[in-house]
C-alpha cells in the first residue's frame, strides 16, 4: 500500500480514464444500493407474517343460479358435506379472501361518537370453525361458539354482538391495555361490538394498504346466492382434495357455478407486481454490475497494453510479479474508492428524491458500507486477470523498441 501516493498522483495526470471508472462505480453504487433497498423492502413486504396456513387453505366460491336456490339450506348442507370429507381439517363460510385484493373494510374507534383516532380495518365473517379453517392463532380470549354465529341476509341492520380482532389492531386501538371485554365502535355510527378474542395475525385483503394488519371478525354467515367457503386440508393434501371437493359440491347441488381458489394463488396474485418489480430491479442491477465489471476489465486491459514498456521497466528496476499485480490492484482500489465516495452521496441523493417523489422509505445507511465492500471485491475480481497479465510482462520488455 506504500505506493498509494505515486499511484494517486499518476492517476490525477490521467483524469479521463480515472474519472470514467470512478464515475461508473459511483453510478453503479447509487443505482444498485437503491435498487437493493427497494428489493429488500418489497421482499420484507411479501414475507410479512399472515397468520394463515397459506399452503393448505382452499376457497370455494359457489354462485347459485336456479330460482329455487335456498342459500341458508345450501350452506348448511355444504358445510356438513365439506366437514365430513376425509382430509378436510375445518370449513367455514367466509365473506372475503385475505391478501386477495378484494374485501370489505370499515372505520372503527374505541370510543362512541368520536371521529378522531379511528382506524380502518378489514372485516371478515366466519363461523365457529373459522379459526381452524384459516389456521389462526388465538392469543387472548376465545373464538366464536356455534350459538354466537348468526345467519343473516346481506342487507340487514342486524349485526352480531361480538368480534375477534387482530393483535395489531388491538395494539393500535388500546395500546398496552387488554382489549378483551372492551367495546369496538363503528366510526360515524351508534353500533358497537364486544371484543371477545384476539388473534396473533389476520391480514386484510389489501397488501399495500397501511391498515394491512388490522382486521375484525364477526360470527356471521351472509345468506346470499353467492357463497364462499374457506376450508383447510391436512398438510400437503390441498391439491389432491380440490377436485374431490368440487365434484362433491356439484353432485350435492348442480344449480350453481363452482370455482376453487387457493390462498397461495390469491397471495401470489396480489404480490405479482412486487415480484415482477423485484425481478426487473435485480436484473437491471445485475446488468449494471456486469457492465461495470466489463468496463473495469476493458480499461485495465487497455491500461496494461498502453503501459507495457512501463511495466517492463518496473520489472527491470526490481519489481516482482506480485508487486506489479499489487500495483494494479491498489490502483483499482483507489478508483473504486473514489467511486464509492461519490456514489454514496449520489445514492443518498437518489433515495431522498425517491422518498420525496414516491414516498419510499429512507435508505438504511448500512447499505452503503456493504455496497462499498461489494464494489471493492467486484473491482478486484474484474482487474485481477489484466493485472495478472501485467505481472507476467517480461522485464526484457524494457530494452525492446516497442
Amino acid at each position, binding site marked *: 500500500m506504500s505506493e498509494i501516493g505515486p499511484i494517486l498522483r499518476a492517476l490525477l*495526470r490521467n483524469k479521463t480514464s480515472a474519472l470514467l471508472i470512478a464515475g461508473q462505480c459511483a453510478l453503479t453504487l447509487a443505482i444498485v444500493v437503491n435498487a437493493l433497498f427497494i428489493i429488500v423492502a418489497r421482499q420484507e413486504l411479501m414475507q410479512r407474517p399472515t397468520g394463515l396456513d397459506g399452503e393448505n387453505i382452499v376457497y370455494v366460491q359457489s354462485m347459485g343460479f336456479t330460482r329455487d336456490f335456498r342459500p341458508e339450506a345450501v350452506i348448511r348442507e355444504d358445510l356438513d358435506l365439506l366437514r365430513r370429507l376425509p382430509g378436510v381439517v375445518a370449513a367455514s363460510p367466509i365473506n372475503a379472501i385475505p391478501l386477495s385484493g378484494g374485501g370489505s373494510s370499515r372505520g372503527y374507534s374505541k370510543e362512541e361518537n368520536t371521529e378522531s383516532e379511528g382506524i380502518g380495518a378489514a372485516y371478515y365473517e366466519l363461523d365457529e370453525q373459522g379459526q381452524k379453517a384459516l389456521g389462526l392463532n388465538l392469543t387472548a380470549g376465545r373464538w366464536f361458539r356455534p350459538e354466537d354465529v348468526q345467519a343473516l341476509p346481506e342487507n340487514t341492520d342486524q349485526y352480531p354482538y361480538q368480534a375477534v380482532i387482530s393483535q395489531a389492531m388491538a395494539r393500535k386501538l388500546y395500546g398496552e391495555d387488554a382489549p378483551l371485554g372492551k367495546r369496538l365502535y363503528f366510526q360515524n355510527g351508534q353500533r358497537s361490538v364486544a371484543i371477545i378474542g384476539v388473534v396473533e395475525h389476520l391480514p386484510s385483503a389489501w397488501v399495500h394498504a397501511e391498515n394491512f394488519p388490522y382486521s375484525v371478525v364477526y360470527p356471521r354467515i351472509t345468506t346470499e346466492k353467492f357463497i364462499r367457503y374457506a376450508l383447510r386440508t391436512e398438510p400437503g393434501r390441498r391439491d389432491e382434495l380440490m377436485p374431490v371437493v368440487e365434484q362433491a359440491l356439484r353432485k350435492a347441488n348442480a344449480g350453481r357455478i363452482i370455482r376453487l381458489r387457493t390462498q397461495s394463488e390469491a397471495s401470489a396474485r396480489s404480490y405479482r407486481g412486487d415480484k415482477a418489480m423485484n425481478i426487473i430491479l435485480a436484473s437491471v442491477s445485475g446488468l449494471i454490475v456486469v457492465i461495470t465489471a466489463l468496463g473495469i476489465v476493458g480499461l485495465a486491459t487497455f491500461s496494461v497494453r498502453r503501459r507495457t514498456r512501463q511495466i517492463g521497466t518496473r520489472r527491470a528496476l526490481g519489481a516482482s510479479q506480485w508487486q506489479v499485480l499489487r500495483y494494479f490492484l491498489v490502483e483499482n482500489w483507489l478508483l473504486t474508492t473514489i467511486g464509492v465516495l461519490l456514489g454514496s452521496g449520489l445514492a443518498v441523493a437518489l433515495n431522498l428524491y425517491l422518498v420525496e417523489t414516491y414516498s419510499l422509505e429512507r435508505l438504511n445507511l448500512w447499505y452503503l458500507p456493504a455496497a462499498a465492500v461489494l464494489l471493492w471485491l467486484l473491482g478486484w475480481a474484474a482487474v485481477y486477470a489484466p493485472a495478472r497479465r501485467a505481472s507476467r510482462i517480461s522485464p526484457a520488455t524494457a530494452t525492446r523498441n516497442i
Partner: protein
Amino acid sequence: MLSMHNISKVFRTDLVQTHALRDFSLEVAAGEFVAVTGPSGSGKTTFLNIAGLLENFDGGSYRLDGVDVAGLSDSALARLRNEKIGFIFQSFNLIPDLNLFDNVDVPLRYRGFSAAERKQRIEEALEKVGLGARMKHLPSQLSGGQQQRAAIARALAGSPRFLLADEPTGNLDSLMARQVMELLEQLHEEGTTIVMVTHDAELARRAPRNIHVLDGAVSDLHVVGTPSLRAATV
C-alpha cells in the same frame, strides 16, 4: 563482478531457431568500464538482457557478484536486479505520469527503504546529475539529455554494484550525448562498474575496455588504458 561462461541463448519459433548467443564468455571485474559494440543482430541486447537478469539463458553459467543466478526464482531475480544493478535505457524509460522525484523513487520503494532514507537518496542522486532543482518536473518537461540524467539518477539512487547502460546516448544529440558520457566517466572514476552497450564506435573508445560481439560471441577484445581485467574469449 560479472562472470559469464559459455552462455548460450536460442530463440525458437515454429519454423526457425536463432542462436542469439553461442558460448559467450566474459568476465568483468569490479570498477571496470566496459563498452560492448557490435552490429545489429549480433547479440548485444541479448547479452545485456542476460547480464541484467532480464532474460533467462539456455546454457552455460553466470555469476553476478558471486551469486550463481541459474535457477533463481523470479522474485529472487527481481530482488537481485533491484539491489545489484542500475539500468540506463536508450529511451530513458522514465514513467511519464510521475515526476522526477517519484521516478527515482520507483526502485527504492521495491527495495523497502524507509521514506526518510528514500528522500535522502533521491535528493542526492538528482543533485549528483544536476537535476536537484527539477524534482517536481515531469519527464515531458525536460530535454532528452535531462531525461537521461534523471534515468541515471534513478539507476544510481539504490547504490548498485554496477550499471548496465543500453545505448545511453542513442536518442541524444551530440552535445547531450557528451554530457551523459562525461557523467558515466565521472561515475566510473568514483568506482562504479559500468557495462555499456553501444553502436557508437567513438563513444566506445572512451571506455577503458571494449569488447566486440559478432554472431552471438565475443569476437575481439580491446583494452584502452589500465584496469585489471580478464576476458575470456571464444
